[in-house]
């Protein structure tokens, strides 16, 4: 395993936009398909409840800036979501045209048309509210934290955001395949948010004691800390050079130039969620000759969306179903393969038990293995804060307000959902911001 063998030009081409932006005419033709539903299912299906028919009608009537305002008013990460949302299970899945014409209106691409149009002109839609004299600390500069911070600035509260990494945006910036959301784009979308007067402190991790301090020094605190390290398989050879964590593999395509990225000749991705597809498709784009996704269960149980599965198939990725990893194999101090046990499913659905098939062990030779297994929660950190409850990897909050068991402490994003979409994090940040607004205002009285 070594750095990619592909040239810069080829890499740029491979990582080019999955869906290039619409031209004005393409956007108008697509927009004209929208029926302008009443109490539209797409709007209800969107976690941030963007008024989809309204923004599409604004595109149709040559008002892309007004359209962008409609979008950003509900979702300040509207451009990112336009690129990375699983629209097939959200707005587009709900689209009534899917019932009538078997093809939904391309809401995501229309959303991108409008948001890119406004972004290219550096239009600013929001102003900070009149200073309230209240101050709120936000931990984590991901979509949840920044959505919350933005909403709080609109209300006039002073906001300080503490971010552990040296780059803002969380997984939105570095955790999604770069051909879906480029680092450059992700950072550009943060610009208007940060310009609202958010005091962003990078490389500033906060521990349990830190959270207690923030609660003392600020009127309220929002936790948008996301999740931690990738789950471990706890099988032999997990430390062998050549074994990667899924998010690290995606990170590298954001943090360095593409020609600095490492990739194997034969890459095995373990797991079949959306991150697994991101890893596998990026490996192909970085020049891997063969990429295999290995999953313990079958295609039916995979958690990657159908659309992601189609992407993977289109990239020529191999699938090894019913393959449970048992050992990472080493030769001369480097990974040379992964040993799997063939398993059978006993029972129905995701609750089905895995039963080894006798004599069903086999090896897939590879020089890189990527564990795309989902992330572990910061259980230790969270449970060290008195009053916080973590259940099944989720920090428990009141879903209507984001309030935790601790007065003045709110939370949202992956730490409460154990990993969901950007759009969910944005909404949870918004909901918490509204509750925090009520809380800090009532506090002074």
């Amino acid at each position, binding site marked *: 395993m070594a750095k990619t063998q592909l040239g810069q030009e080829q890499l740029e081409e491979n990582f080019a936009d999955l869906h290039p932006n619409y031209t004005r005419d393409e956007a*108008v*033709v697509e*927009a*004209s398909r929208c*029926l*302008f*539903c*009443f*109490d*539209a*299912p*797409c*709007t*209800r*299906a*969107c976690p941030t409840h963007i008024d989809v028919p309204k923004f599409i009608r604004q595109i*149709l009537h040559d008002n892309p800036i007004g359209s962008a305002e409609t979008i950003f008013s509900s979702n300040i990460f509207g451009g990112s979501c336009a690129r990375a949302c*699983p629209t*097939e*299970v959200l*707005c587009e*899945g*709900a*689209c*009534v*045209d*899917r*019932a*009538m014409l078997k093809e*939904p209106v391309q809401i995501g691409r229309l959303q991108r048309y409008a948001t890119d149009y406004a972004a290219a002109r550096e239009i600013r839609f929001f102003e900070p509210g009149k200073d309230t004299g209240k101050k709120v600390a936000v931990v984590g500069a991901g979509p949840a934290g920044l959505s919350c911070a933005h909403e709080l600035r609109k209300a006039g509260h002073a906001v300080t955001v503490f971010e552990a990494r040296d780059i803002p945006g969380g997984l939105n910036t570095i955790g999604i395949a770069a051909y879906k959301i480029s680092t450059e784009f992700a950072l550009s979308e943060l610009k208007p948010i940060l310009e609202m007067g958010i005091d962003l402190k990078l490389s500033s991790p906060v521990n349990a004691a830190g959270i207690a301090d923030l609660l003392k020094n600020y009127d309220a605190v929002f936790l948008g800390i996301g999740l931690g390290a990738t789950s471990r398989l706890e099988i032999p050879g997990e430390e062998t050079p050549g074994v990667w964590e899924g998010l690290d593999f995606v990170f590298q395509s954001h943090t360095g130039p593409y020609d600095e990225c490492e990739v194997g000749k034969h890459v095995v991705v373990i797991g079949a969620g*959306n991150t697994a597809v991101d890893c596998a498709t990026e490996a192909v784009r970085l020049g891997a000759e063969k990429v295999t996704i290995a999953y313990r269960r079958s295609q039916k*149980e*995979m*958690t*990657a*969306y*159908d*659309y*992601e599965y189609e992407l993977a198939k289109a990239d020529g990725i191999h699938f090894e179903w019913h393959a449970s990893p048992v050992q990472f194999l080493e030769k001369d101090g480097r990974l040379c393969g992964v040993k799997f046990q063939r398993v059978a499913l006993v029972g129905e659905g*995701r609750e089905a038990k895995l039963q080894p098939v006798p004599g069903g062990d086999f090896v897939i030779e590879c020089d890189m293995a990527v564990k795309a297994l989902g992330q572990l929660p910061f259980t230790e950190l969270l449970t060290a804060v008195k009053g916080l409850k973590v259940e099944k990897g989720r920090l428990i909050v009141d879903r209507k307000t984001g309030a935790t068991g601790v007065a003045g402490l709110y939370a949202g994003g992956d730490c409460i959902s154990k990993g969901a979409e950007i759009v969910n994090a944005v909404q949870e940040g918004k909901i918490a911001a509204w509750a925090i607004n009520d809380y800090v205002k009532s506090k002074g009285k």
Partner: protein
Amino acid sequence: MTIRKPDISSNICGIKSPNPFWLASAPPTNSGYQVRRAFEAGWGGAVWKTLTHEPIVNVSSRYGAVDYDGRKVLGLNNIELITDRTLDVNLKEVREVKKDFPNHAVIVSLMVDSKREVWHDIVKKVEDTGCDGLELNFGCPHGMSERGMGSAVGQVPEYTEMVTSWVKEVAKTPVLVKLTPNITDVRHVGRAAKRGGADGISLINTINSIMGVDLNTLAPRPQVAGRGSHGGYCGPAVKPIALNMVQSIAADKEIQLPISGIGGIQAWQDAVEFLLLGATTVQVCTAVMHYGYRIVETMISGLENWMREKGYAKISDFQGATVAKVGDWADLDLSYKVVAEIDQNKCIHCGLCYIACEDGAHQSIRMTTITEEEFAKRNGNGGPASVEFSGGKRVISGSGDGRVNIFEIKQDTCVGCNMCSLVCPVSNCITMVERESGLPKMSWRQYTEKLAKGEVEKIQPPVHV
């Protein structure tokens, strides 16, 4: 019944053509080159773009269009004038085309100064080409009307009668008078044409219009050096206006002349509607300007197959069949009642019927929100709103946030206005179903008479929210 090829040939006041589809006097019939290509493409006749003694001078630009939410050219207007070619060139080409296409109808449109001898002169010159008939352009609403021609004649019944009679003094071929819609009641001018001796009526010419304003330059559209002028409006958007005028001429007891129907015809169905409402031939312009002569193929094929399906062997079997079905509102049956019905298996849950009824009509659709579980139970998997899964997540089109809106007609308050069925995007999802009204069959005229005599009870107003 044996299915055979129906006869779609036409004969309007002696002018014969292999089919009723003519090109209207307009840019597509500007030259011999064009009319030849049109005939080769299948057009049955052509009304040559209006001739006059001296070629006119045109401006640039000339056309403007109305688009509607992504569809182009629902309406078109123009400020182009009549022929800009010399009379000699036109006459030569008319003669040649007629010689080469003896079975096609070649009609020549005319417009000259309102002087008797000037009209006599051009009629004689034009008829010498061997053309099949004349059409007097009393309709052009722009440019020429400012010079006392076109609609300036057609808007005054006395002028229409006078000029028509001048033409008839010398004309040997049938004379069609083309009417302008820019008047209050087209029948008055139609009657004047009849008095002047017209053999047939063509209508409608274009409607006075301003197409819009360029929101960058604030100039009207179409613009000429930043200024505009009212132009003639045509295209699919004007069809209903044209149909109304054609029917009113066809139904008029005084006029009783064959009609060549014009106005927004772009599909075979449009043409059939004109024929049903009293036209004998139809004339097309905008759709050809948009798509070319080739559209006549689908018009002919559509007409033939419709006739075959309905069992009509020739056009006269149905021509004018709808004329007598149009009459005064006062004669409509007050006892007739329809109400809307929504087919729940076809509904896609867009809510367009609901909001149209609630805000725009009579508040007679009930919206009920049910859970996805309940919906899935009712619908099963299949039908338009099927339940699908992706990445372990359930997706139902028409559902969001775990709920689905169901729409039902309030049968007791629905007035049967049609609005919901008009906006519903799904074919045959909302139908209008006949219901017993409990009233005796009677028109408003009969009702008021009976009411005065105390023979019927007063009809109670409907219940409103």
